[in-house]
Structure formats: C-alpha cells, structure tokens
C-alpha cells in the first residue's frame, strides 16, 4: 500500500516537554477469515499535558481500535504491525507497542498511568460488586493504600465526580445507579490511580443530552484540575467543538486531517472533514417552508394516557405504577412533520406505540381521518379495522439490523405487506418491489440479496421501502436515524423529505436528537416524564424555548462551532 505524503502546513516543533504520549506511525491489522483488515494505518499524534485531543470518525474508522492499542487491549486476531507508542515518564520513556501481553510494565500502565472510560458503563462495571469495592481495588492495586485509606479516598473521588451522598453510594451496586451516575463512577474509577492520561471512548454516547453536557463538564473540569492529557473518542462534531483543543479526523484507518480545533472547524482542508462538517452543520437549520395547517388534521390525539402496572396484585395489594404517557394531545395535519423529542424514559417511544396500538392505551382517544369515509376512532378498532389502519399508518424502526428478518431476501421483506394484503402477487409484486427500491435509492437488481449484504444506511432504506409499500398516509419514524453515522443520517433525512415531496405523507418523527428534529420537522412536541411540556414550531422550540425544561434541553445540545461553545452558558433544570 502506498503511503500518501502528508502536506505540512507548518514546520514540526522540537520535542515538547508537555508531551506525555507520542504515537508514531502506528499500524494495526486484523486477521479476518477471508482478508486482512488494515484497521489503523500510519497513525501519529501526541497527547499533551492538560490538553484534549479528540479522535473523530464514523463507525469503522478505527478510532476505538487506536485508543485500545494504547493500552494493548485489542482483540486476539489483531496485531500491531508497525510504529511506536511512546509514554514519557519522569525519567525514561517506554514504548508500549513491543511490550509483552502480561509484562509488569504493561499492567502498571493499564489503569495506573493511563485511565480508560468506556461508552457503556453498565457493561464495564461489575454487577456483583459494589461501586466502592471496585474503586477500592484499583486504589489498593495501583497506589498500594490500606483498606481504610482507600475507602476514604474512594469517597473523596466519588465526591469529586459529583455523586451525591458518596458515603452511602459507595456501598451501592451498579444497577442502583442511574446512567449518568454510572458514567461518573466509571470516571472515578479511571481517575483512582491518578493517571497522567485519560482515554474516554465515546463516554457520552449512551447518555441523554443533558446528562451528556454534565459529564462533559465534569471530565473537562477534572482534566484541567489534574493537568491530565485526554484522548476523547467521539463521532459527534458538537462534542468535539465543546471540549477539544486539538482534533484528529480518522477515515478508514488513517488520520486524514489533524490540527487545532479552530482550524479544523473553520479551515478544513481534507474533503472528508468538510463533508463531515457539512452534514453536521446542515442539521443545524430548517429549510422547510412550514405549510400553514389547513383543513382537518389527519390524526387527532386527545388526552392519551398509558399507565404501566398499577393493577391490583394477586393478593389485593396495589402494585407500583408508572405513568408512561400522561394526558397527551396533539393534531397532525396532512403533509406535516411533527417531531417528538425527549430524553430516554420520557414516554416518546410509548406514545408512538400507542398511536399504532401495538401498546394498548389506558385512556384517551385517537381519531384518524386519513381513510375514505368517516373518521375512525383508533382506540375502538377491532382486529380487521386495525389491520386497515396499519396499512395507512406505518412504522419505521430504529435498528436497521433487528427490524429486517435476516432469513428473508429483500424482495420478500419489502413485498411482505403487499403479499399479505393481497395487493399484488407474482410478477406484479416483483415489479412493485423494484419500483420501491428505486424510489429509496437502491438498485432494484439487489432484491434477491439478503439484508446482511447491506450497510446500515442501506438497510434503513429497505425498511423505508417496506413502510412505503402500501401507500401509507402517515409514517411514524421511531429514532429512525439514531443508529446511523452522521453523514448517512443526513442522507436518510433528505430521502424522507424527498419522498414527502412526491407522496402525500405526514411524519411523526420521534427522536432524542434535537438537531435532527430541527432539520426535519415543522412542529415539535417536547416530552418530559410522560407529558408534553411544550409544543411549537421547530424554529421556536430550538431558538426561543419557553418551558424551563426545554430551555435546559436546548442549551445542553453541543454546538458544532468551537467559537460559540454553548455549554459555557447552559441553563440547568431541576425538577
């Protein structure tokens, strides 16, 4: 493979005393069954004391593997094929790359000099030990503390990561912590040995926006206090703009561009970086000319409620109940895109399922006027009526992998609704499937393939083609772009908007991602704890929110511009 020459804009500085870790020309291969994947190619960067380097890239770009290579925790079929990882200490520097797997130096570095925070705190914390005992262990191992001192230090660490009541929480188990608290505990553990370097691998991807903002604040504060060097891995350009000092953009195993954060955002040179930024920034605006709602709404939801549990138990005692959706009312007009945003647990997904009646509402009414003739009360529909309703109101799923049956060909998947409804069979069905695939931008000749032959974005297109098969009136998209990379996300949203231009469709777009909703929707309903706290046009909600909760939500969204960091002036919401 030929190594492309890097164009130097400025001469390289002399060895910097601030540099704690230097990666030089690191290459890493994975041996797969039929091929060798060059996951990391010729990657060089440095980590400096008190500075944050963000490694940005889409899935499969090799960013996580690079970070794991620093600690030598790569999978068995992977091997470092070249380059050096120089860790500079007080006296000497160690090259991590050639160390043997179980060598004492390596064990001392892992968790001792380099701390690591994972994406998914639930699976990286032990479920059978208390949070405290896991941190105490790290302290005793790396800092040789006795039990009492370690416990005191653990409480201090938990206090530093802003866990309330650290004296009590130290003896709690992982599952007793909320998602954000778990990530805090994970950070406390990574900091236990007082490392010089902190590697955070997508530390906030599994968290809600407001929690993400708090965790980023915390990481940044601790880093500055302790003067650590930090390597933050993320796919979110917003997060990069908020916390990075320097940025390295990875694409298919190579760093295609790196430099100070301001240069990357305002003077991007590599086409890929520009594309990445363009698809991020694009979602910051709404180009839709919102049509004035005319005529009667297609769908009217009135006072919808859903209570989980709460039925009297076997022995007459009332059990614990959750109001997942509480008193929700809205109208959806023809050709309108309604966004429903909220954090996890806000009831937005349940609301979508209630409208489809895959979950039965406890009370309330859903009036559908899309079909011919009389408006239909959806909550009173029988089996047959519901089947007809499901032909008009379709769902696009979040997970493009789980929502397509892996054992059916694309033709069978997309054609299934046509076949079941008896709309077309045989050659007519094949023709219609071909049309649908072309409509969503896929090659009609690929209809004999199985879903595993397609990428995530392509699979989501297949899912959309299936939803469109029966000429629906309303599409409910439940986090339809959440599992996709940012550039693909923009493509899928554009596809949906394009479809809407050609077909008389209304969308209910459920998402936790405010920028996506802003780009796509005319009106937005903000949900919090089962209630709609605010409703208005997308522009109003995003620029001039009224409700306190919406204000805190909007202000927590990272802004992909390092010159206008949004997190510095966040409003916080306590309820």
């Amino acid at each position, binding site marked *: *493979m030929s190594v*492309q*020459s*890097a*164009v*130097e*804009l*400025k001469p*390289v*500085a002399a060895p910097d005393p601030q540099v704690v870790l230097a990666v030089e020309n690191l290459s890493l291969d994975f*041996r*797969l069954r*039929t*091929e*060798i*994947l*060059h996951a990391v190619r010729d990657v060089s960067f440095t980590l400096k004391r008190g500075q944050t380097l963000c490694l940005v890239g889409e899935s*499969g770009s090799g960013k996580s593997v690079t970070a794991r290579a620093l600690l030598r925790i790569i999978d068995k079929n992977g091997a470092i094929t070249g380059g050096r990882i120089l860790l500079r200490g007080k006296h000497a520097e160690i090259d991590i790359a050639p160390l043997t797997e179980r060598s004492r130096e390596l064990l001392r570095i892992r968790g001792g000099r380099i701390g690591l925070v994972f994406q998914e705190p639930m699976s990286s914390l032990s479920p059978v030990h208390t949070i405290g005992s896991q941190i105490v262990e790290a302290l005793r191992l790396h800092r040789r503390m006795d039990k009492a001192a370690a416990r005191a230090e653990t409480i201090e660490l938990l206090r530093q990561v802003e866990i309330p009541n650290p004296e009590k929480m130290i003896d709690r188990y992982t599952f007793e912590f909320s998602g954000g608290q778990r990530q805090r505990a994970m950070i406390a553990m990574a900091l236990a040995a007082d490392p010089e370097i902190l590697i955070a691998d997508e530390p906030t991807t599994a968290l809600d926006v407001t929690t993400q903002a708090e965790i980023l604040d915390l990481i940044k504060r601790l880093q500055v206090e302790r003067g650590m060097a930090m390597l933050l891995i993320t796919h979110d350009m917003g997060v990069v703009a908020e916390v990075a000092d320097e940025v390295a953009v990875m*694409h*298919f*195993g*190579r760093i*295609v*561009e*790196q*430099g*100070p954060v301001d240069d*990357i955002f305002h003077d991007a*040179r*590599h*086409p890929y*970086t520009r*594309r990445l930024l363009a698809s991020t920034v694009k979602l910051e605006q709404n180009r839709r000319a919102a049509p004035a709602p005319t005529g009667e709404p297609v769908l009217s939801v009135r006072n919808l409620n859903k209570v989980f549990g709460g039925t009297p138990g076997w022995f007459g005692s009332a059990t614990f109940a959750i109001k997942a959706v509480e008193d929700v009312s809205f109208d959806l007009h023809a050709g309108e895109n309604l966004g429903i945003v909220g954090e996890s647990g806000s009831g937005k997904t349940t609301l979508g399922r209630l409208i*489809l009646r895959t979950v039965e509402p406890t009370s309330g009414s859903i009036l559908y006027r899309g079909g011919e003739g009389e408006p239909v009360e959806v909550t009173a529909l029988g089996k047959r009526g519901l*089947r007809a309703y*499901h032909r008009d109101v*379709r*769902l696009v*799923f*979040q*997970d493009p992998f*789980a*929502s*397509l*049956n*892996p*054992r059916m*060909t694309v033709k069978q998947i997309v054609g*299934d*609704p046509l076949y*079941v*409804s008896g709309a077309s069979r045989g050659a007519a069905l094949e023709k219609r499937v071909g049309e649908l695939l072309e409509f969503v931008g896929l090659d009609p000749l*690929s209809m*004999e*393939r*199985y879903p*595993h*032959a397609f990428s995530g974005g392509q699979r989501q297109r297949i*899912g959309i083609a*299936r939803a469109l098969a029966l000429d629906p009136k309303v599409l409910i998209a439940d986090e339809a772009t959440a599992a996709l990379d940012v550039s693909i996300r923009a493509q899928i949203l554009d596809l949906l908007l394009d479809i809407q231009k050609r077909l008389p469709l209304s969308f209910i777009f459920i998402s936790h991602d405010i920028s996506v909703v802003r780009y796509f929707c005319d009106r937005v309903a903000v949900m919090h704890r089962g209630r709609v706290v605010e409703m208005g046009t997308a522009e109003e909600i995003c620029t001039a929110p009224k409700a306190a909760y919406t204000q805190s939500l909007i202000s927590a969204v990272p802004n992909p511009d390092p010159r206008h960091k949004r997190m510095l002036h966040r409003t916080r919401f306590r309820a």
Partner: protein
Amino acid sequence: MAAHTFIDAAPETGPAVTPLKTSGKAQSIAAAGQWTLIWQRFKRNKVAVVAGWIIIALYLIGIFAEFLAPGLPDTARPQFTNAPPQSIAFFVTDENGQTRFQPHVKGYTQSVDPASLRRTFVVDDTQVVPIGFFVEGPAYRLWGLIPSTLHLVGPLDPTDTMYLLGTDRLGRDLLSRLIHATRISMSIGLVGVVISLCLGVTLGSLSGFYGGWVDLVIQRIIEVISSMPTIPLWLGLAAAIPITWSPLQVYFVITLIVSLFGWTGLAREVRGRFYALRGEDFVTAARLDGSGERRLIFRHILPSLTSHILAVVTLALPTMIVAETALSFLGIGLKAPVVSWGVLLQDAQNVRTIAGAPWLLIWPAGAVVLAVLSFNFLGDGMRDAADPYEG
C-alpha cells in the same frame, strides 16, 4: 499549538483490506440464503464434519444391513459357541511354496477341557477359508421385499464360516448381529425423536408465542413430567407390555415410551427461542404489515428456528439411543428375535462372558459410544453454526 496537517488526496471509499484468498465470493455471499451460510460455518468445524460422516455411515449400514452382514443374525451354529474373532489375511502359500493373493480367514480347531468339559477355540493356521467380495450367501429379503443371496463379504463356499468379530454363546455371528442391531438402534432414536419433535415444537411454539396462561399450563406440565424419575417409570411402562405382542409392536411401544420423556427439553428450547423472537423488531414489523398469527409463526418465526431445532434434535438422538440400550440391557426393552445394541449387551452381563469372550462387550458398547459421541459432536457443531447472523 500543534501544526495543522492533512492528507492531500481524495477520501478513500472503503476500508483497506488485503484478501487472504483470491476468490470472487462477495457476490455469492450477498445472495446466499441462511442454509448456505450455516453450511459455510459448519464446514469450519472439522470434528463435527467427521462426526456427520460417521452418522451417515451408521445409517447406511442400518439401511443396507442384510447386504452388508455376511450372515443372518439368527443362524446359530452350536459347534462354534463363543468363537474368538478371526482376522483377514491376504496371501496364502500353497504346497509348492508359492505365495499368491487370496483373501482368507483362518479356521478354528477346538479343544475340550477334560475336567470342565468346556470347549475353547483356537485359530488354526493351517486351515484356510477363502473369502471374497459380493459372494453368494444365505438367502434374505432386502427390507423384507427384495429376495437376494448377495453379500458384501463372505466365505466363497457358503458352507464355510467366517466370524470377523467372533460369535456369541449360541454360535451366532456377532458382526451380522451388530449390523442388524445398528438398524434397530439408530432407527429407534430417529422415530423417537420425530415423535418428540412434533410434541415439543407444537407445545413449545404455543407456549412461547401466546405466553400468559397457555405458557403457564404447558410449562407446569413439562415440569411435572421432567420431575418424574425416568428409570422406574420406564421399567413400569415396559413391564406392562403384554408378552404376547409381536416384536414389532414392542418396538413401537418402546419408542413411544422413550420419546414421551424426550420432548420436554425440546419444548423448552423452542419456547425460549419463540419468547425471544416474539419481541424482535422484525416480528413487530411483520405484525404491522398485517400478517396474521399463523403467518407470523410459520413464515417469520419458525424459519429462524429450524436450524436451532435441527441442532437440538441431533443432541436429543443420543439420549434416545442410550435410553433404548438401557431398557434392552435390563431385559425390559426389545426382545429376541429383534437385535439392538442393548439386546447384544445383554449377553455381556456377567463377568464370565467378559473374561472368556470380551468381544461380546467391546463391539456393541463401542458402537453405542461411537454413535452417541458422533451425534453429540455433530449437534454441537450444528448449534454453533445455527445462527450465522451472530458473531
């Protein structure tokens, strides 16, 4: 501040890979169905593939038992009781001192112990019994239909005897009996599993798909059945078979008894899979597409299960074989003239036989072990390959 550097080239369109094998397989994998993928994964497990071939060989032996066996299983020759196995040799030296190719076995001389009057056989090197392939032998009907006298191997002269694995205490050829027993033992597992499969898949699907009280009732039934001690129950049921019944009737009743307890594990497995798949997005999608319950079960859920079910069935077969062997060994299963591995092992129940004629234990027991191990390896391999979309 660090320098701003970048690679001055167009972005690449795909990950960098070096192919290990030169083959244009990508296209075929894209259009490969689940069975192709399963087969490709299965092929990588060499032990399972070998086990699969052994199983196929055992079934072929069972199917063509009459042809493969040198003799009939029930021909007793009292003059050759407990004769030791003979070995095949290929060259004979005649009176002129010339060596020529002639496959043969050596005959026996018998000596009678004057004190105990026990007869023992010793292989007599002077006596040569020429043998060959595709020889005329005792008449039989293949599958009870086609009359024939052709045997794969046997002595050239039908009046001669050849006991490659020795004889039992009535002077019957162990090899012929073992081959015929393969048919019975391997098929009893198969028939038993088919019955288990029907019960298990039906009840398991119902239980997993509907959940609620249906699930509750079926699961409690399964628990009650699997909590019963099997051996005493088998004993009781088998003892209730009337003596007057024909061996064929007994055979079917025994399979029924064995499979009556085999289905519970299968039902649980199917139920668990159903339970997991019921909540999958693609099932919800199919439901929203308007599929009825029957279509959901048969078109969307069961195809995802067939490979798992096959694997479970393969793992259930050996338990059936062992169960039959155990029943027959205890003398309450199949009875003469039907021969199964268990019936053969009955002959090896006392120490005297094992001391005097160890082949009566070694060969039938070896057959059971080989079959059971092969089924287990095959089943394990199939289970690992059953879900080609994971990992």
